[in-house]
């Protein structure tokens, strides 16, 4: 199960970021959410939501003796893992990285995304 994003549909409203941080840490702080919307510097309307791709071969855990399934369900990761990710998919604040745990199977961001830019696939 993973979240699929369709960037052309994204309106860049940041609601997904807000709801993600609110759900996990009871705070509205878009820097501390597992999903982030990359806007470009040219002021175009193109926005790209970025979040963990739930890869089968988890490069982020290279060199660690971690149980993959257990780690997949954790929201707070560390910076080292974020640096290993080839897709630069995790948000980092200080030494903490924020990883998408799919809200325990019921992703909140999908519920608030009115343009339907985020969807759940298996």
């Amino acid at each position, binding site marked *: 199960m993973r979240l699929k994003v369709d*960037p052309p549909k994204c309106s860049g409203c940041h609601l997904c970021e807000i709801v993600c941080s609110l759900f996990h840490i009871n705070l509205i702080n878009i820097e501390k959410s597992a999903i982030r919307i*990359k806007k*470009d510097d*040219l002021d175009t309307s*193109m926005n790209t939501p970025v979040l963990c791709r739930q890869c089968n071969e988890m490069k982020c855990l290279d060199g660690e003796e971690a149980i993959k399934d257990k780690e997949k369900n954790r929201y707070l990761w560390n*910076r080292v893992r974020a*640096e290993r*990710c080839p897709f*630069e998919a995790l948000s980092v604040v200080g030494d903490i990285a924020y990883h998408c745990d799919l809200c325990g199977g019921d992703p909140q961001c999908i519920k608030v995304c009115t343009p339907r830019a985020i969807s759940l696939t298996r």
Partner: protein
Amino acid sequence: MYQSLYPKGDQPNPLTPLIIPRSEHPISRKRIDEEALKVLYRLHRHGFLAYLVGGSVRDLLLGKVPRDFDVATNAHPHEINTLFRNSRIIGRRFRLVHVFFKGGKIVEVSTFRSRSEFEEVQTEDGNIIRTDSFGTPAEDALRRDITINGLFYSISDFSLIDYVGGMADLKRGVIRTIGDPDERFQQDPVRMIRVIRHASRTGFSIDDPTYRAILRHRDEIQQCPPSRIRDEFLRDLKEGVVQPSFGLMLETGLLLSLFPDFQRAFGDRSPQKERNRQFFLSLFGLADQLMNRDGSVAEPVLLALFLTPFIQAITPDHPFLGEKERYLYRMQTNRLALHQILVPFSFPRGSKEVAFQILLTQPSLERALQRGGIPKRLRIKKYFREAVVLYGILAEAKREKVPPVLRNAVPWDLLPWWPKHPKRGHRRFNRY
């Protein structure tokens, strides 16, 4: 013999230099440039003090071949000018004399000064007065930036004169500012770049108080005139020791103070901080290799390399864009990066434009190589060679192979890490 360094009564003891006789130092006249010796001897014969100063003495002591020889004397610029018919007084505020020789060789002769070129003295109205403030040899040594550059070689008895402890620092392998580092960096923040350049050039370590002063004063560099920063920076880029120099600049945070936009790629908020830093340093490691072999690398290539991590950090991937839109998008992003990073420092326009073009050519080159040939419209570009150099450096940094079709389109020894004797078959390019 000389005027006292301090006003009478203020300091009991004027500075006494350490004098190292000829028998105790390795500098022989054979290693000094013939023309520089001529200048030194003529000044000495006419009763003036004549010292070889600055980087040339340091390089001679380190066993390197100095690039240029600077002479300092107590003769005034017009006196030097009358002594040498082949000379010209240059500079408006900081006057010195250039003595010209055959083959375009120039020996720079300056008069001992008490204040540095860039320490501006303002009158009450805020006007800057001329900094031509002649002084004694001791004052001249003390106004220089780092101790190992403050050594004098006297032509009268071939001895070394050390007012600032430069000899000891050379032996210890330490870069130290002359005087209090805080004060020196406040007077002229560009000295921080110079300290880092000298440290990377000589491989010496930076003295601890000096290093800590850089950390304290790194943000003051933004107050310097951009043109001076650009000149120092371009000098840095062309030195052939860019990798250690940028390594130190990243370590001290000076690079991020100079170019705050680089926070996006190298700052603490960037998730790929370490990877970006390593990639950036490896790019310049390869550029250094190329520079040490060829003597120089085209300025646009260096500027393009410098911009690469920033462009990578600001360009999000838009796979849904069509080919033409993607090209236009890339063009706009490159233009933005160029504008944000290079325009404030007014880098030469020609280099900037070529850097922009070769950055823009990279994806086209990659696509062409995937198709198996280089179209003629690319090969006939004036900047094709630079574009291939940039492509080669980027590919090597990412540990990718460059297809033979590209290596065959340019001289085979363009990059030092390419195979030495490629088997060159029939050269054929796909036509589009």
